[in-house]
């Protein structure tokens, strides 16, 4: 059935159109005294079977972006105020609730950060594992049970049959996340959104869980959006990366390009603020000074400008659009030939990127230190 769905859906759209295409997504949270500009014009694509990273610090809008894709923003404060979210050409942002409900779990599934509050404490694992199945198919209790057992085997939980009757508190953290993965992949969705799937887990378990996600999604050809602030996870798991800052995507490209040739000052800062395993003793960590902008204020200029060592006067007034680093025209958005793109008026040179700081005081520069606001 999933196979049939997939074929039907593939036939319905252009051969080279991406699976998911987010365009100019704007999400704002309205509270009684302020409006939070959580996501401001984010665009990115995900092709069938691709694993794409979404990186950024806490509060940069990466989780909100994905909750918006799933239409799970907390109501009534969070609203999609603009843009489109095209899955196979269908706009998820404009769908009726009953239509998006059919998409959730079947076409797009989600894994959340902390598996403890994500599982219902009063329902057995069986009940929760079959949630997806029951929401989308008429299925007998016996079949659902068998499927649940198969899923537990698939995610490597030993002794699955008696464990079905267990409750979440009888599982360890890593086991719970495996159950979550099994729930999310029950119907072999075409897109899996993994929102910091390993942040709440023990380091030793993290690798196992990531490997499990990679293996299972490769098997089913499921595309993955991996949200994380862990650059190591990004390097190991993804083919492409989008770097987010304060509700904008500031740099996008192949994972190898981003790590080898970081071109946006924020990405440069990120990479210089974590120690490298081959960095040697003399390696200097350069923190990004300052704090992210107050997103209660409508963004003016480049959001990173107040913290940026490369900023110019123009940066403070005009928000740069995202363009190819090498200045070429049409950008390739998905796949192995994806264009390396940044949103920056005054990008660091490769030498400066390697050093992590501006090498000479340029004429256009406002100040050399990053902490001036």
């Amino acid at each position, binding site marked *: 059935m999933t196979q049939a769905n997939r074929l039907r859906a593939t036939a319905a759209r252009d051969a080279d159109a991406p699976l998911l295409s987010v365009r100019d997504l704007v999400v704002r949270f309205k509270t009684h005294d302020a409006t939070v500009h959580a996501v401001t014009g984010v665009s990115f694509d995900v092709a069938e079977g691709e694993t794409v990273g979404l990186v950024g610090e806490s509060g940069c809008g990466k989780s909100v972006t994905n909750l918006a894709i*799933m239409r*799970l923003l*907390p109501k009534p404060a969070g609203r999609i105020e603009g843009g489109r979210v095209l899955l196979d050409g269908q706009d998820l942002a404009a769908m009726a609730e009953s239509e998006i*409900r*059919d*998409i*959730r*779990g*079947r076409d797009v*599934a*989600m894994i*959340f950060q*902390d598996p403890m*509050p*994500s*599982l*219902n*404490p*009063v*329902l*057995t694992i069986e*009940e*929760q594992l079959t*949630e*997806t199945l029951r*929401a*989308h198919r008429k299925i007998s209790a016996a079949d659902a049970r068998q499927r649940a057992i198969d899923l537990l085997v698939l995610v*490597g*939980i*030993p*002794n699955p049959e*008696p*464990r079905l*009757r*267990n*409750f979440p508190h*009888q*599982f*360890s953290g*890593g*086991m719970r996340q*495996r159950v*979550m993965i099994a*729930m*999310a992949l029950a119907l072999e969705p075409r897109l899996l959104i993994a929102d910091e799937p390993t942040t709440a887990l023990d380091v030793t378990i993290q690798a*196992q869980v990531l*490997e*499990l996600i990679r*293996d299972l999604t490769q098997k089913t050809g499921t595309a993955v959006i991996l949200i994380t602030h862990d650059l190591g996870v990004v390097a190991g798991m993804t083919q492409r990366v989008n770097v987010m800052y304060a509700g904008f995507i500031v740099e996008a490209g192949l994972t190898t390009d981003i790590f080898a040739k970081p071109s946006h000052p924020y990405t440069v800062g990120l990479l210089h603020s974590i120690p490298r395993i081959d960095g040697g003793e003399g390696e200097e960590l350069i923190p990004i000074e300052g704090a992210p902008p107050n997103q209660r204020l409508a963004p003016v200029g480049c959001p990173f400008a107040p913290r940026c060592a490369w900023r110019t006067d123009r940066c403070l007034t005009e928000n740069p659009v995202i363009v190819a680093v090498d200045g070429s025209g049409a950008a390739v958005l998905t796949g192995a030939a994806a264009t390396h793109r940044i949103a920056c008026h005054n990008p660091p040179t490769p030498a400066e990127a390697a050093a992590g700081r501006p090498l000479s005081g340029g004429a256009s520069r406002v100040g050399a230190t990053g902490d001036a606001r």
Partner: protein
Amino acid sequence: MTTRTPPVTLAVEARASRGLWGDAFSRLRRNKPAIVGMVCIVLFVFVAITAPWLAPFDPNKGGLGKSFEAPSLAHLAGLDKLGRDELSRVIFGARISLLVGVVSVTVGLLVGGVVGVLAGGLGGKVDMVLMRIVDVMLAIPGILLAIGIVAWLGQGLVQIMLAVAVTNAPIFARILRGSLLALRDAEFVTVARSMGADGRRLVLRHMLPNALTALIVAATLALATAIIDVAGLGFLGLGPPDPRTAEWGTMLTDSTEALRRAPHLIFAPGIAIVLSAIGFNLLGDGLRESLDPRLKR
């Protein structure tokens, strides 16, 4: 880069699950006051059920010649103004209290539960309208509301049950709605939504079982209040219309009328009311502690 995930064989062996309720019960068993409460309740229910066999005398047979006789070995609690055995009447009175308590709290739970689920589950205008009605009902003191209903519908057991149910229903509705609202933003609810669960399933299957614990505690405590309410109505002369019916509150009124001649008569019904009400209160508090993980010591 390996492509196979090693099977996890951790020390977490599958053990027979006692589940949420099993764990709660084992916590309850360690709670001494709750055990005392349970003993009171078991005694109360046992007495109510076995009254015809347990009572030493017929509660309605007496003789005016023996009116107000003091307690003796034959009549442990003495005789009332019609010469009836007070202890036997107290034993039969347990039936009325238990029946009215259980029926009225059950009816209150059903009505209040439905209102609470509709308000907390649907939210919006439905919630607003229902909660304003609940506000109005909560604004009237419970016993006053009950008196009003009995005065309106006339005396009788069914009316008493209805009156007590009506005073309880808005309390249950409010509690359930509050729990459901708090659960609406729970992460597992978002997860269930992300799996494609519809609103009905979210509320009934995911949120309601989590909200029930508060309601169970409230219902247990409401049983204590119901017993007192029934006795209170009886005391005010709004008890069962048939004067032969043994009802604790009515018995208390009768005994106060003869307080100077036969002070012993107030003890048996008074003790019965206190013990049964305290029993449900202690159990309710114990349940609250054992069902609420935040109160875990």
